[in-house]
């Protein structure tokens, strides 16, 4: 990724604060400091002569520069501790710089009796300061990390109260005022949470509150059941009102739906289940088997699924008879009962369709 000149870099600085998705380790604890380091390093690179950076290269260099600072500090701290001091001084830092600069070497590194004060490292730095341009940092950096103000513990001693009982030392936090927990909370406030938000209830209070809550739930359930007329939807009371998908399923006949024409495939199944032929003498029983279908069509309830199921279930094997497929058998049926003519015609249509299908197959 190429970033343009430094002006673009500064504009994108805020935008590029979000970590790239390929970063495996997530956000580090010193993200803010690293961002500042990136800007500083970018400024330095621009002063050297670069006109653009690869983001990975910039991140790497800023990470290394931060580690450089860190290692100077560590070495300086080590030499201070070795000398029996807690705070470092300039000699510790020069020791640290010499350690880090020993790779490339500095003037006077090989001298046996060199003094820290006249170290070549310091001379190099002095020279550098004399030569380099003055480049101020681009942003105003606040002091970080921000120190959080510690909240006062509010001990007995601070409040000036006497702890109740000799066993309680005065440096412990004081008890809250009795008014905050002694009063009984009303039922309406329960759902809003304890009004004072304190965990100072005694066990008795808590048990009583739970009992009240459960009683309330029970009352709600009974009230709802009365409204619904006996259907048990206690637990989903609130949910059923708002969410239609959680509503109770409808029973057969509750809601009018459009009629479904029984498909020919199903009538085929009906025929197949009873492959034997109807004897002429038993034609009455055929009507009886189709009686549920007839009744369903008569009454107008069109929950054909149930009717179909009843049809199938009723025709389970104890009754065996033969059904002839073809108009001959229908002819005999039509002689029987003129009242059911319409229904018979309908039934005939099923078989009629059947015949047509067979013809097409042939």
């Amino acid at each position, binding site marked *: 990724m*190429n970033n343009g000149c430094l002006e673009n870099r500064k504009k994108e600085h805020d935008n590029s604060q979000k970590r790239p998705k390929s970063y495996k380790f997530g956000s580090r604890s*010193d993200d803010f*400091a690293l961002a*500042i*380091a990136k800007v*500083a*390093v970018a400024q*330095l*690179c621009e*002063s*050297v*002569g*670069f*006109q*653009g*950076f*690869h983001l*990975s*290269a910039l991140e*790497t*260099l800023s990470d*290394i*520069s*931060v580690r*450089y*600072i*860190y*290692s*100077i*500090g*560590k070495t*300086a*701290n080590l030499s*201070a501790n070795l000398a029996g001091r*807690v*705070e*470092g*001084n*300039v000699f*510790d830092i020069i020791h640290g710089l010499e350690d880090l600069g020993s*790779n*490339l070497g500095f003037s006077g590194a090989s001298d046996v009796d060199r*003094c820290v*004060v*006249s170290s070549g*490292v310091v001379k*190099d*730095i*002095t020279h*550098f*300061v004399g030569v*380099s341009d*003055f*480049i*101020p*940092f681009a942003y105003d*950096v*606040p*002091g*970080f990390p921000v120190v959080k103000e510690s909240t006062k513990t509010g001990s007995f001693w601070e409040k000036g109260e006497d702890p109740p009982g000799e066993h309680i030392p005065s440096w412990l936090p004081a008890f809250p005022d009795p008014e905050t927990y002694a009063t009984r909370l009303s039922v309406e406030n329960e759902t809003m949470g304890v009004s004072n938000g304190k965990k100072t209830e005694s066990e008795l209070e808590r048990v009583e509150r739970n009992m009240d809550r459960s009683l309330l739930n029970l009352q709600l359930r009974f009230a709802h059941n009365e409204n619904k007329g006996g259907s048990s939807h206690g637990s989903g009371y609130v949910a059923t009102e708002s969410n239609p998908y959680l509503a109770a399923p409808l029973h057969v006949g509750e809601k009018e739906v459009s009629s479904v024409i029984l498909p020919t495939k199903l009538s085929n199944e009906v025929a197949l289940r009873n492959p034997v032929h109807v004897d002429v003498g038993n034609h009455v029983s055929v009507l009886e088997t189709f009686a549920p279908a007839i009744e369903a069509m008569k009454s107008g309830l069109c929950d054909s699924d149930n009717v179909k199921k009843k049809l199938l279930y009723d025709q389970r094997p104890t009754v065996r008879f033969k059904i002839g497929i073809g108009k001959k058998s229908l002819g005999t049926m039509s002689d029987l009962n003129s009242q059911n003519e319409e229904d018979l015609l309908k039934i005939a249509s099923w078989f009629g369709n059947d015949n047509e299908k067979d013809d097409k197959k042939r």
Partner: protein
Amino acid sequence: MNHNRQSNDGNHDDDSALSDFLASLMDYTPTIPDELVEHYLAKSGFQCPDVRLIRLVAVATQKFVAEVANDALQHCKARQAAVVKDKREKQQKDKRLILTMDDLSKSLREYGVNVKQQEYFADSPSTGIDPATRDE
């Protein structure tokens, strides 16, 4: 004795040079902000109330980064010069100097820092031949 006196004088000179230098640091504000340096020094355990020492560390880091960047710049320029020898067309295109991982790793190696990127497999043979001359 004489030697000691001379060394003492020398030390005095060095001391004064050092103290002068530290005093001059207060006039010169380094590019790396003080707060950043303080944060990382505190992280490493180095405690110091003196601001001049923090400036000293900041200036030392600035010098280090400038040297590394300078070496990377030399590498970049050398690469561009090599390319220009082969193809004169690119001379006008690639006047931009861009800090790349390649140049940076080469310059950091001299400082004892090993920065190596993992090799990756590219789609075509021409990918990645000259990253500096390729506009991304």
